[in-house]
């Protein structure tokens, strides 16, 4: 049997890697890739707590499905924003996007 701690440590590691990507990448698309890693780490935690808690309480799996929907919405809007910015400024490097109005 796998103890709960293994899943929690895996999720913590994946979350930290995603956080590093969000804080350190220059390309806006790569920042969104880091956000995806963080959301996946959260989902591992939710499903692990469902499995190791009361298995007839489906809240963990339901919340994981809600996170799937939120991730899809976030990627669609985020990538549309990146493409819109690329059309106007011809760049997707986050540190070159330093104007509030163009």
């Amino acid at each position, binding site marked *: *049997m*796998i*103890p*709960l*701690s*293994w*899943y*929690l440590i895996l999720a*913590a*590691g*994946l*979350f*930290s*890697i*995603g*956080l*590093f*990507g969000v*804080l*350190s*990448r*220059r*390309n806006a*698309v*790569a920042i*969104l*890739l*880091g956000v995806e*890693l963080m959301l*996946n780490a959260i989902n*591992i935690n939710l*499903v*692990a707590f*469902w*499995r*190791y808690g009361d*298995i007839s309480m*489906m*809240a963990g*799996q*339901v919340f*994981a*499905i*809600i996170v*799937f929907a939120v*991730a*899809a*919405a976030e*990627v*669609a*809007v985020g*990538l*549309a924003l990146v*493409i*819109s910015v*690329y059309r106007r400024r011809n*760049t*997707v*490097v*986050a540190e070159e996007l330093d104007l509030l109005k163009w």
Partner: protein
Amino acid sequence: MTGEQVIFLIVGAVTLLSGFMVVTVRNLVHAALWLVATLFGVAIVYTLLNAGFLAVVQVVVYIGAIAILFIFAVMLTRREAAETGAPLNNNWWVGALMAGLTFSGLVYLLQTWSGFSKTASTIPSGFDAISQLGAALTSPQGYVLPFEVASVLLLAALVGAVYLAFNKK
């Protein structure tokens, strides 16, 4: 060490390694493909947790839709400077420090919790996780309201994405 633990260790190592490649490789198409590997690892972790439906949803929604969307966005926003410049910004060591502090803080907090190393209870015979999940998602005593709110959120995201990416010229 049981076979299940060996599988978990291999899958966890592959997942973390490909996650690290996602945030460090220069070529963004490669980063998106490493993300696909990471998402497959997470799907196998769901299977190990007896959540087969979520593993299928992970493959269909994340790998089938989100990863492909990323590859499309990378190809629509190509530029020479973005391909040749440094993949990380000048403050990357602050990001690495924050990530390391987050990881050690999380592990420290978790190992003080009493339920940290508990093992899973056996699944009662006749327990059907998928029908339980379907009932929970559609019954008014369950989670029908968050389910409907999620569908409205997806509709709003659809309209917003079309509006934002629409070329007005």
